């Protein structure tokens, strides 16, 4: 493909990768919970991706590829190892559960004043739930894209997402009860 004005040159790493910068940084910060570590993680991601760009197959999902590199870099970092070792990962097998739909947390969270509460809840979720919620709700990735990023089957994405949403609701309800 050839370039149009103001649009990335396909085949040029910088032009493909820099438009993803803000989202990757946001995602990295949520994973690491620390600005300095997030910056290190993003820097490392871009360097690794640049080095490995020759192996990237044009026509495949560049965004999922970048997120996969970032996530893998996080998982092998000290913070990432600590975060994943302290979490008992639920086995992602079987059909997604029917979500709890008591309704109350969602309606209360509409208010902007509770955005901080929701942010604290997201931060407290186990990292595997946190990342999948962010990829789905913030990055608006499809299930297939999420599967490509996490290197898991689509079925696992569906069941893990269902559990993550349930965990979020339960944590929100708990916090709301404490503040009531």
């Amino acid at each position: 493909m050839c370039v149009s004005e103001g649009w990335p040159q396909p085949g040029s790493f910088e032009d493909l990768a820099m438009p993803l910068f803000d989202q990757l940084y946001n995602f990295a910060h949520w994973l690491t919970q620390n600005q300095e570590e997030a910056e290190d993680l993003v820097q490392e991601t871009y360097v690794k991706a640049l080095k490995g760009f020759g192996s990237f197959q044009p026509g495949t999902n560049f965004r999922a590829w970048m997120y996969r590199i970032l996530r893998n870099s996080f998982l092998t970092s000290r913070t990432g190892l600590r975060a994943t070792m302290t979490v008992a990962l639920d086995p992602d097998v079987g059909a997604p559960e029917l979500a709890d739909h008591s309704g109350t947390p969602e309606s209360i969270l509409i208010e902007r004043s509770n955005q901080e509460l929701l942010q604290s809840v997201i931060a407290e979720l186990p990292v595997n739930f946190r990342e999948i919620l962010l990829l789905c709700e913030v990055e608006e990735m499809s299930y297939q894209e999420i599967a490509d990023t996490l290197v898991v089957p689509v079925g696992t994405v569906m069941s893990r997402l269902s559990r993550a949403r349930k965990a979020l609701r339960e944590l929100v309800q708990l916090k709301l009860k404490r503040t009531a």
Partner: protein
Amino acid sequence: MSCQTWQAKLDLYLDGELSSDGMRAFDAHVRTCPSCAADGLARVQMKRAIKTAGQRYSPSADFRRRVQKSIAAKPQRSWTLNWRFATVAVVLLVAVGLAGTLLRRQGLARERIFTEVADLHVASMAGNTPVDVVSTDRHTVKPWFQGRIPFSFNLPELQGSDFSLIGGRVAYLNQAPGAQLVYQIRKHKISVFIFQDQLIRDGLSDNSDVSRKAAFSAGTWSQDGLRYFLIGDAAADDLRNLEILLKNAAKG
């Protein structure tokens, strides 16, 4: 189907992961089921709240500059000046000046074409029926155009892809008849316009070209005498993937 079964699909529906038929069936159910409608609304509110809350961290401008600098391709320059190169440079300058004028004219023509394509897309999306032939089956949509437009085209097999076909209608550009096909990926609709290249090509290159035009991603290419336009509010990567499918289908 029981309400419990619909409830089990609610997240798939809201995440845009159901097929077109599934989405339509769910739409129809939600209109008649207050419980599922209320549940759906609550979950949409939660999704929006998470999206807003999740967009929390922004990189500093300084950090962005550092990373960009570290990955920027370094230009190669060689400076060798003698009178031969000076002569060549003068000739080139004149040529560039002429080419610049031509490029400006082509740029204006190109912008006009894309504006008209965007208008066609927006007009069809705003209407009650964005298509005249409603079908997810390419074997139904393609024959519908026979006798309505002066050329034929191939449509891709979408099984295994994230795309679904909604249908098609006849469209006009530069007063030439062509085909508009509407595809969906997740919650986004993409229009594919196909015209005879000789009637449309002013200012457009043969090579494919996806770019951002205001709120849309748009692209165009020429293949075997036909001019293709893609436009929609989906991501540019999605358009490029659809482009690949269409190009492969056109090869037959």
